[in-house]
């Protein structure tokens, strides 16, 4: 067959050869889809990791609600921490030190307090007393048997 210019052209596309150039952005579209799939796979993996590794050891059935509730109420501390940051900077504290203190309060786990240590000591003393009493009771029973 001939085209408009009278030149002979193939009537059917030749096998193994491109008849037209691919679109310029085909690679870009494919890459975006791949990245999108990778993104959701990563999100799912992180969620599964949290559920299996962290949740399996931390969040028991009845404790989930308490955990969420405590996290929600904890956000009041965040607002107070921001206000404390502002006040300390106003009072002349160095910015870097103030931000560092804020990060420690907000992001790092809470340290044990002295009150808690005192309660633990008292508890240990009581347990010690109970243990000694139990020991004496056992000693009394054993002598009775003899």
């Amino acid at each position, binding site marked *: 067959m001939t085209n408009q210019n009278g030149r002979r052209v193939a009537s059917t596309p030749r096998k193994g050869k491109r008849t037209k150039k691919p679109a310029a952005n085909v690679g870009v579209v494919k890459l975006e889809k791949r990245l999108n799939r990778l993104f959701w796979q990563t999100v799912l993996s992180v969620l599964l990791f949290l559920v299996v590794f962290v949740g399996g050891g931390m969040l028991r059935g009845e404790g989930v609600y308490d955990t969420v509730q405590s996290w929600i109420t904890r956000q009041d501390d965040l607002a107070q921490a921001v206000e404390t940051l*502002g006040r300390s900077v106003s009072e002349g504290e160095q910015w870097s030190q103030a931000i560092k203190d804020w990060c420690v309060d907000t992001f790092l786990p809470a340290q044990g307090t002295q009150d808690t240590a005192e309660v633990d000591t008292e508890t240990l003393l009581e347990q010690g007393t109970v243990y000694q009493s139990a020991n004496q009771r056992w000693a009394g029973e054993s002598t009775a048997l003899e």
Partner: protein
Amino acid sequence: MNELRLGRFCSVSAGFIALALLSLYLWGPPLLGPILLAAICHEAGHILVARGLGVPAAHLRLTAFGAELTLAPGVVTSFWQDIVLSLSGPAVNLLAAAVLAHLNRWPMLLGANLLLGAFNLLPVRPLDGGNALFALLSLLAGDRRSELTLEALSLAVAVAVCALGALVFWQDRRKLQLLLLGAWLLSERMRGGACIFTRVPIK
């Protein structure tokens, strides 16, 4: 795309509205108000400096991941202009914090400005500090090498923050903030958030 257009210049995504409602529930107006004001100052800094450099800002989009300021299409800025543009937002926040500290007023607003400015100066993408670092490295070593370096650094920091956040959550189940921060940084890397200023890429 689910977006609410606020005039010609600004649009708000459904994710941002959901995040705002959740923040309102968790923190209430006393903290949310100063954070929004600090964010407005931040973006206003970017927009004003962009206009001063002769690079008009075309669109501001608020999403759950942050604010995306799109410059006029077809405009290619120099690396020095990129540095100035990137650092203008945090500079405005820190300047506002300095003024409020001098006046000794509104501690919540002062804290919000200080935190937003300092956080955005971190040399990690998609934060302003990361963009400024990219422009600076590009001046020294070319943009391709800088792109790879900064992408690797940003991904490493995101993964490290996630891991540290998981460890902190393991020790204290009330401390979820660091894990959420790491998840945000990681999601930004996965979304391919290269630069907060979207425009024609430099080839």
